[in-house]
């Protein structure tokens, strides 16, 4: 437009200017919005990385636990028979060895007030429908029917080979699902979207049905029920969580004991039997191999098909077994002949009882029973005694084959090396996959075991697919779940989903916020439980005791102490405060965290150790507490704690432990409620309810 002379602007000129302005405005908004979405995506990635790092760090703790048990095995002579015989309790999961496996289920009364499903065997469609409805209504299946179901499942599984072969010639598309981890909503969503299991809709479920989620029992009952109903169309592979030590740590045991107070022990025992009988692999048309974890360079499918899979109870047992073999080999080289029992004081475990008798024992009146040698029942040593002793290498080979299948992860570099994070299995490269494919004429490996943001992921040039079916695994909004459908063409098609809480659709922003907040909380807990190490390292940079270090120094300390590979500078604003000059006030990250209850006797050093190893300690207590009463004796507590801290190399004053033990024994009856004890060492976020509140408020504003 000119200045000065008022040229008459034509209508079109005005319009053109308006349009140009509108376009500029639109571009601006679009660019801003794209920037906003990019930031959101970045936060989502960081959040994901946090969850994954912490999960893998947690799995290193599993290794810690295994090494602790090995340590105990090496040192149990020092217990002088006075301490809890953890080894036997660990290896012998049977609480009541004289309890016949074929319990009289019909003896269990079901009250008239019970409105849940009353199953009749053999199962029919009305039974499975009743189960579906009952679980949707939050009902619990009565122990009697659960026990019967497990018994029938066990019988049927016994007839199955280690590797199950399927063919697409006779069936419609096969659906393959990954980890469910007790997420009933995901299973119901899959059934809803894809159809219930039937001749038209055959399924393969690839392990890890239990642990972490709150409805493991419901998930596994449905899977087993459909398996009993349609054994030709419902296929279950074993996962690494179908293992009683994992169940102790990751929640399945607790869930069973909470929902089944009377019959929990028997139920757990049966679950253990069933889990160890689950097949290890499924093969479709001789071309698609489906296993839970992966493979190793030693994997030999023919050999795998021949092992007695039920002997392998789980990973920790494997490690202990190997250690035990090494020990007995050292101690009594010539002793293990087939029928005699050799018992020197240092090899109390190498005494197989005669296979036929069940030595009666008085019923334990207190949890602190100490097992004596003669009545010890160690399941796999039974089989050892009835054959000429297999040389340990043979055993080792069998166990390793199975552990590799259940625990391995694919990696992008060639080669095969031990999976040190998980403590079992291998990292296998594309060359290992290639070799196995060639060796057995396969074209695809489908596995699960790792959470993926989109529910599935391909690697090794498309030869390996990871399929994961538990959506929102880490937190609401963290990831999708997925399943595969495959027809005669053997080309996988992926179906994704995400279970949402409530009916209101969350925006991406809200989902990211929720997940991020949860990840940051978990991260802060890592900081809290490593407080003294962190502070010591900070002080090394902070010579003048100003309470501050530079951002670089702060990031460096965190990286080296926590050993989590995360973008610390980017996360810094969420974790610590800066001074006006841009230095980090390193103590500010501990401000809003504290412990559950206050225990006066607890020194900071002790407290931190307890915080950090809380889960491991919980597992150990659960093992000692065989009848799952929640109580252990003070003596057991003391012994266990001393042993554990000796193993950790932690300098804990024994007197402090004794004082602590006594102070926790509130009833002064010599037993400790360890759940209460451990409550004291749960990290509490003091600001939590305020954060939650303000998030709720901002949510209702934004709607």
């Amino acid at each position, binding site marked *: 437009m000119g200045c000065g002379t008022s040229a008459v602007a034509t209508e079109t000129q005005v319009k053109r200017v308006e349009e140009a302005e509108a376009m500029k405005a639109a571009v601006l908004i679009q660019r801003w919005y794209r920037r906003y979405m990019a*930031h959101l995506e970045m936060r989502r990635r960081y959040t994901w990385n946090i969850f994954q790092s912490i999960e893998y760090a947690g799995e290193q703790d599993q290794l810690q636990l295994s090494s602790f048990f090995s340590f105990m095995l090496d040192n149990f002579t020092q217990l002088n028979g006075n301490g809890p015989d953890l080894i036997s309790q660990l290896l012998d999961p049977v609480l009541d060895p004289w309890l016949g496996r074929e319990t009289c289920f019909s003896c269990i009364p079901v009250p008239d007030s019970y409105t849940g499903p009353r199953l009749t065997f053999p199962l029919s469609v009305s039974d499975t429908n009743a189960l579906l409805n009952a679980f949707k209504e939050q009902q619990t299946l009565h122990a009697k029917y659960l026990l019967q179901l497990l018994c029938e499942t066990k019988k049927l599984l016994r007839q199955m080979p280690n590797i199950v072969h399927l063919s697409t010639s006779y069936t419609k598309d096969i659906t393959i699902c990954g980890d469910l981890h007790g997420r009933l909503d995901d299973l119901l969503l899959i059934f809803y979207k894809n159809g219930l299991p039937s001749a038209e809709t055959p399924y393969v479920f690839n392990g890890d049905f239990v642990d972490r989620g709150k409805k493991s029992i419901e998930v596994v009952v449905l899977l087993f029920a459909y398996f009993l109903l349609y054994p030709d169309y419902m296929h279950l592979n074993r996962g690494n969580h179908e293992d009683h030590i994992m169940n102790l740590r990751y929640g399945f045991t607790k869930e069973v004991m909470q929902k089944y107070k009377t019959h929990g022990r028997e139920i757990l025992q049966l679950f253990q039997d069933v889990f160890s009988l689950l097949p290890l692999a499924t093969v479709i048309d001789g071309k698609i191999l489906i296993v839970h974890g992966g493979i190793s360079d030693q994997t030999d499918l023919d050999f795998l098909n021949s092992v007695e899979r039920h002997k392998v109870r789980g990973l920790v047992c494997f490690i202990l077994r190997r250690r035990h073999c090494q020990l007995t080999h050292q101690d009594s080289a010539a002793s293990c002949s087939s029928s005699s029992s050799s018992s020197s004081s240092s090899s109390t475990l190498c005494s197989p009882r005669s296979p036929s008798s069940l030595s009666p024992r008085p019923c334990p009146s207190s949890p602190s029973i100490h097992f004596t040698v003669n009545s010890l029942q160690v399941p796999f040593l039974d089989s050892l005694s009835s054959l000429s002793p297999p040389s340990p290498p043979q055993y080792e080979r069998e166990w390793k084959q199975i552990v590799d299948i259940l625990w391995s992860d694919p990696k992008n570099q060639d080669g095969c090396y031990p999976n040190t994070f998980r403590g079992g299995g291998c990292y296998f490269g594309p060359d290992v996959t290639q070799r196995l494919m060639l060796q057995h004429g396969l074209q695809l490996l489908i596995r699960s075991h790792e959470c993926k943001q989109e529910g599935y992921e391909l690697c090794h040039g498309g030869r390996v697919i990871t399929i994961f079916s538990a959506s929102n695994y880490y937190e609401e909004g963290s990831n999708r779940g997925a399943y595969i459908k495959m027809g005669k063409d053997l080309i996988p098609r992926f179906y994704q989903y995400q279970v949402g809480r409530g009916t209101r659709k969350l925006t991406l922003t809200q989902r990211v916020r929720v997940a991020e907040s949860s990840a940051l909380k978990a991260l802060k807990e890592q900081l809290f439980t490593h407080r003294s190490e962190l502070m010591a390292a900070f002080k090394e940079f902070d010579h003048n005791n100003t309470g501050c270090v530079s951002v670089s120094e702060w990031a460096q300390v965190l990286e080296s102490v926590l050993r989590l590979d995360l973008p610390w500078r980017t996360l810094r604003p969420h974790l610590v405060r800066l001074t006006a000059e841009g230095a980090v006030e390193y103590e500010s990250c501990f401000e809003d965290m504290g412990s559950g209850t206050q225990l006066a006797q607890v020194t900071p050093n002790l407290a931190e150790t307890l915080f950090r190893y809380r889960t491991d300690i919980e597992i150990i207590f659960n093992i000692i507490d065989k009848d799952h009463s929640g109580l252990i004796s003070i003596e057991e507590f003391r012994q266990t704690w001393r042993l554990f801290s000796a193993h950790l190399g932690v300098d804990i004053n024994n007197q402090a432990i004794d004082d602590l033990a006594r102070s926790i024994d509130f009833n002064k009856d010599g037993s400790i409620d360890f759940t209460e004890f451990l409550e004291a060492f749960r990290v509490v976020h003091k600001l939590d309810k305020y954060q939650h509140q303000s998030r709720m408020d901002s949510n209702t504003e934004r709607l």
Partner: protein
Amino acid sequence: MAAHRHNSEAMASDVHKKIKAAFKAFDYEANNTVDVREIGTIVFSLGCFPSQADLHDFIAQVEEDHTGFIHLEKFLPVMTNVLLEKRFPPIPEDKLLQAFEVLDKEKKGYLEQEELTKYMMQEGEVFTQEEMDEMLTALTDQKDNVIYYKDVIDELIIDNDI
């Protein structure tokens, strides 16, 4: 002179660290490569406001012969220059408000969903349907079914620190 050089070196080093951190977030296989489709996200998250044309040019500079992957070695120097030269400077927040006001011809104080959709999908650097759906879900007031743009601006600019 030496101090000045040291400062610019330190600055470059900081910039490098920032770029690497953002890159690594999308380096799924831990082999210093990212999918080319994530480049836009990375560039935006480093504080830049490229146009779609800018992005295309940028990608052309860093792409390795159409493998679909970008290597850190190529990305780092190009991105460093972009940041040091401030090549895609941010648009000030008040301009954003003005932009919405331009689109709100009737000066209602809000935009109807159809209005916004028309502009976003027909003008400028058009949105895909997916982008449009997400924007509507994120910005629409659930009660009144319109976009109160003054409020949403706070939402859009709030996540500045990452």
